[in-house]
């Protein structure tokens, strides 16, 4: 029974964990790309890693918190422009191949010895070196607080302050995306998703709209990268392709082209993932080892993604008619 409660608590903790918020925010950005505009961005982790580096390096260089956040956003914006200008005129899968490659380039550059002075190479930037400005902003008193079964320190890496900030940012992003998508601008995006040529015939500059969507979604991705590294260190290898694929799973699980899909998807995905892994460890712990549990978990994620896309591509909240899969 105690074991059971521990497992449930761990799954519950995942619901509010900062990295769940980070994935939700990254999926909100990806939703703007894929759900609303129909762009196949397979390099969201690259945006996140760039955002994290931008934030970390700026803070280490002495920038205050807000400036560092702006640097992160700027990094994502520049990356989106660099990617979008050559590829947005081409068919969808070219964008997919280029974004996944570009994200890998960012990771390789980050872990290479050439930029080690700034990025810390493969071992990355340590948490303590870039978090002080964030912790100084906290208005929470010192000490620890317990809410229900969850207990964390008030201010610190894995703290209530990180959680408050992360989910606050997610709420802001939701509001922002809600306003965007019900504006005339958002309606053009959906038009591009449905029929690019029709929108072009109306005299809209489709390329410019796509580029704007790529930039905004990418900037949200960079902010998500900042959220992701606030409770931990910046390590390039933890933000690779697997991360992008998880963001996709989160988005497709919750439902693309819906406002709350990314948030629901992220909470559900990570609590179920945790439940599954801790459950397997408790239930099968003496049959298989801890590494194998991780690998089984990963396999199940892959199979889930396949089944999800085949049988319910609109996810939990989505509407099948609004799905962008049949764009060119």
């Amino acid at each position, binding site marked *: 029974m105690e074991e059971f409660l521990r497992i449930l608590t761990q799954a519950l903790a995942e619901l509010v964990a900062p990295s769940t918020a980070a994935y939700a925010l990254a999926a909100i950005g990806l939703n703007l790309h894929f759900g609303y505009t129909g762009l*196949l961005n397979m390099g969201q982790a690259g945006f996140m890693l760039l955002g994290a580096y931008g934030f970390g390096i700026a803070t280490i260089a002495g920038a205050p918190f807000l400036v560092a956040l702006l640097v992160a956003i700027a990094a994502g914006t520049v990356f989106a422009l660099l990617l979008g200008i*050559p*590829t947005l005129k*081409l*068919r*969808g*899968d*070219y964008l*997919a*191949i*280029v974004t*996944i*490659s*570009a994200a*890998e*380039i960012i990771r*390789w*550059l980050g*872990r*290479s*010895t*050439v930029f080690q002075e700034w990025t810390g*190479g*493969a*071992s990355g930037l*340590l*948490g303590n070196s870039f978090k002080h400005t964030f912790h100084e902003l906290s208005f929470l008193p010192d000490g620890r607080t317990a809410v229900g079964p969850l207990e964390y320190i008030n201010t610190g890496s894995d703290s209530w302050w990180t959680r408050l900030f992360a989910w606050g940012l997610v709420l802001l992003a939701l509001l922002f995306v809600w306003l965007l998508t019900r504006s005339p601008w958002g309606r053009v995006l959906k038009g591009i998703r449905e029929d690019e040529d029709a929108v072009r015939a109306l005299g809209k500059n489709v390329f410019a709209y796509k580029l704007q969507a790529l930039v905004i979604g990418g900037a949200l991705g960079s902010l998500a990268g900042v959220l992701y590294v606030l409770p*931990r*260190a910046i*390590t390039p*290898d*933890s933000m*690779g392709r*697997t991360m992008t*694929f998880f963001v*996709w799973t989160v988005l*497709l699980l919750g439902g693309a082209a819906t406002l709350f899909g990314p948030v629901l998807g992220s909470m559900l995905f990570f609590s179920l993932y945790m439940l599954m892994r801790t459950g397997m460890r408790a239930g099968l712990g003496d049959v298989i080892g*801890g*590494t*194998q549990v*991780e*690998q089984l*978990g*990963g*396999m*199940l*994620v*892959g*199979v*889930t*993604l*396949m*089944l999800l*896309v*085949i049988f319910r591509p609109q996810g939990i909240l989505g509407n099948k008619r609004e799905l*962008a*899969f*049949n*764009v*060119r």
Partner: protein
Amino acid sequence: MTADRPHRRLAWRRLLTALAVAAVPAMLTAPPATADTAPPGTDCTPDGVACVAVLVLDADNGRVPGAQATITDGADFSVEVTTSADAVTSVEVPTSGGYTVELDPASLPADAPLPEGAPTSIDVTAQTGSTARAAFRVGAGVQAPPATSAPPSGTTTPGTETGAGGEAGSGTTAGGEPGTDGGVVDAPPEGDASQRAFSLAQVWQQIGSGLRFGLLLALASIGLNLVFGTTGLSNFAHGEQVTLGAALAFISVHVWGLPLWLGILASLALCAATGFAQDAGIWRPLRRRGTPVMQLMIVTIGLSIALQFLIQMFIGGRSLRIVSSNPVPLRIAGITLSEASWVAMGIAVVCILGIAWWLTRTRIGRATRAVSDNPALAAATGIDPDKIVRIVWIMSTTFAALSGILVGISFGSFNWSLGMQLLLLMFAAVTLGGLGTAYGALVGSILIGLVVELSNLVIPSDLRYASALVILILVLLVRPQGLLGRRERIG
């Protein structure tokens, strides 16, 4: 020999599927051969895995024996280690990420206590392919360390802790690790040419290595491109098919004890069966349902994740050698490669010529090109596109497996991430050559192989794969249809 393979495979396909099904329990029960070579608990070589080392040093950099420390990941991984005087104590950790090393001050010798104010725990970040080291300074004359972390060894800073770098850092060749964890490690004869002034002989040598890499890459990317040509699908799981080939060859040689040639054939047969099973079980039903290609692409991503973890479950995280003997260098026309590499290049050339002959001279090959051009028109002339696509899938996975095996043998070792690293290079190659054209894949692969190996001469080798991807983006800027592609394909 290559040309009639698909026919033969077709004839044998039921048998092969049956074999594949029969083999699964065997694989499940047979422990990976790495188990017996697995290092004992306190001696971890960062060879495709992540290690955490605990160093307890006195003022003269001598190792303090008998100190106890606990390594945890904040969740439920926890290992207790005891240091010894004659070797670095390191353990393998399950994943890369942050770990906390907590020293038990009570276990320290009385004459070497922790200095005042020094922390009893150090946070380290473990990386696959290197050793993260947590160093504690104890004893008289030691100040509390200013930073709470030890620089990780391996790629960059070998031996910042005196006397420790030798063992702990030797797992990774300096700068020679592409990607996350060095799935493609150069065989000893070639070495790493970066950071050196280069001569003509070196350029020539790198061209040789580039040709080898390009030919082996071509073997894999031709399959990727044939599938794209006939179905329009960018198959993200193709990389895992490459790894699967190498992994099955490893298992059949080292677990089942087959001779090498039989192991290779067994691996090829099993992989051909996976191609058949995939098409019959997943892709054909989805084509029947009229699922859009972009949706299928995400399905391949899911398949790629699942396969990747499945392969990891069987072969573990470390680098494996299909052929365990040392490579024999052989010099031909001023280029020194291992004997196995030359043989592999020969096999690749024969196979590629075979595919070219098959595509242009045989009935089914010509039908394949017809389906690539226009499936509806091909169907109208009496070709069965489903049959062609099935043959193409079987060919694609078989040649991917062959490529994986040859890369694994001629580059010395491979690990589970081999295909993941090659996949992007394959995409770069087929985009460069022209998506959907068989010869484009060949030309593109050889160019990418040359670029990757030659860029070694001018940029640090840990960035050499990045150079290929930069080329991919540049090509899309200038000539999006690729070198041999046709305009209408790009949309």
